[in-house]
């Protein structure tokens, strides 16, 4: 039973306070999607996604099924319970207005109406403002559907052709979470035409993670973050 279905057009921004134990599933409706995302404890937004804490706890530089996205207070915010891709980017950050203009050319609402080439940085700021948050709250983000390869010398490159049409990722909320999304190009996207990939979003009720939950058993660090979140409800 779907409780919410919505399609984010290219350039869209979106935010919602999502109740605990919902599955938020994102589906790339065409190839080459990128969705930049931020997560906050909806009850206490100072308790917010911390990318380095997440990566070092899980010994990973990519995100995939089994990973728990953690706050800087050690809490599990959302868990990746579904993933058709195997790799989502936690390193590349998000795109700014100047990079959009440089890569894809000038665009304005006056000229392009709602097809204007929006950027994730400004989208995040606008969407955060709706929840009383601002630039100070805009921490390091993650990018769903994108992959950055890192070579032995540490050089980073965006892998082209990583995301086929129909790719999905599913996130289970472990507490009431403020989710902020920007369906905007990855900042390392090649120059040319502004990528226009609609992404569908479904929110459905899901089970609380039990003892045999995949994410809880993926790594002990993820299990402890889940425990710390469960303590908030004890």
């Amino acid at each position: 039973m779907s409780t919410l279905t919505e399609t984010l057009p290219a350039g869209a921004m979106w935010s919602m306070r999502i109740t605990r134990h919902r599955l938020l599933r994102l589906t790339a409706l065409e190839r080459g999607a990128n969705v930049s995302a931020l997560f906050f404890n909806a009850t206490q937004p100072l308790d917010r996604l911390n990318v380095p804490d997440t990566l070092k706890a899980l010994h990973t530089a990519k995100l995939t099924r089994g990973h728990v996205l953690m706050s800087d207070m050690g809490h599990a915010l959302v868990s990746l319970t579904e993933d058709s891709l195997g790799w989502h980017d936690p390193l590349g950050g998000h795109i700014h207005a100047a990079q959009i203009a440089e890569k894809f050319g000038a665009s304005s609402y006056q000229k392009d109406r709602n097809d204007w080439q929006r950027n994730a940085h400004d989208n995040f700021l606008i969407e955060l403002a709706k929840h009383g948050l601002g630039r100070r709250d805009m921490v390091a983000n993650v990018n769903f559907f994108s992959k950055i390869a890192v070579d032995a010398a540490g050089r980073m490159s965006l892998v082209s052709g990583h995301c086929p049409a129909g790719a999905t990722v599913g996130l289970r909320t472990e507490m009431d979470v403020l989710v902020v999304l920007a369906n905007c190009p990855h900042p390392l996207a090649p120059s040319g035409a502004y990528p226009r990939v609609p992404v569908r979003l479904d929110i459905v009720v899901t089970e609380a993670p039990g003892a045999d939950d995949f994410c809880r058993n993926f790594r002990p660090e993820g299990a402890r973050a889940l425990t710390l979140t469960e303590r908030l409800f004890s």
Partner: protein
Amino acid sequence: MSTLVYTESGRKPATASYDKVIPAGEGWMHRINRGQTLRIVDLEGNQAADTFFFSAQDVSERYSAQDTIREQEAIYLTTGTKLMSNLGRPMLTITADTCGRHDTLGGACAAESNMVRYDLDRRFMHSCRDTFLWQMLTSGYPVTKRDLTHNINFFMNVPVTPEGGLQFADGVSAPGKYVELRADMDVLCLVSNCPQLNNPCNAYNPTPIQVLVWDESC
């Protein structure tokens, strides 16, 4: 590991306008003006100097690890790296580095992340996050936890594998290794000399670091 490149500095400690030793577990918050040069020295080797920067003009502009690594398209910080702000502007440039690479993926240790990483009973050990918060609270500058994000770990080596793994590798630092940064804007430098006792990267032995500042004219 790829070959590391070392860049020496000709600056002499005797001409520095500021010189201070920071014991392990302590912090430092200090204004560095545009044109001044900051050197951080790993006095005894393999010590983590957790470091963060704010614009002195507007503290909501601050160091951004993601913007920094993406703009140079490389995850390690070394000579030539421009430390970028969350507004996409260069804050400081690394002008010398005798260590060869520094980490900005691993963040700072915290009571809460120690519970996640090691065990739930590790809450009551000293951490960089607490040092950062105390330095900010007592600095007189308008900065709080809200302003604290993803920092630099000078002297730490955190490689990424081709499979997307994050490794906490043996240190590439050694006694006396240093990194030097020229400020491209007026910044507030926030340092925690890491007290971590749970991680073999510092041989379970946190040690002092030294900070020196040279003025533009020197």
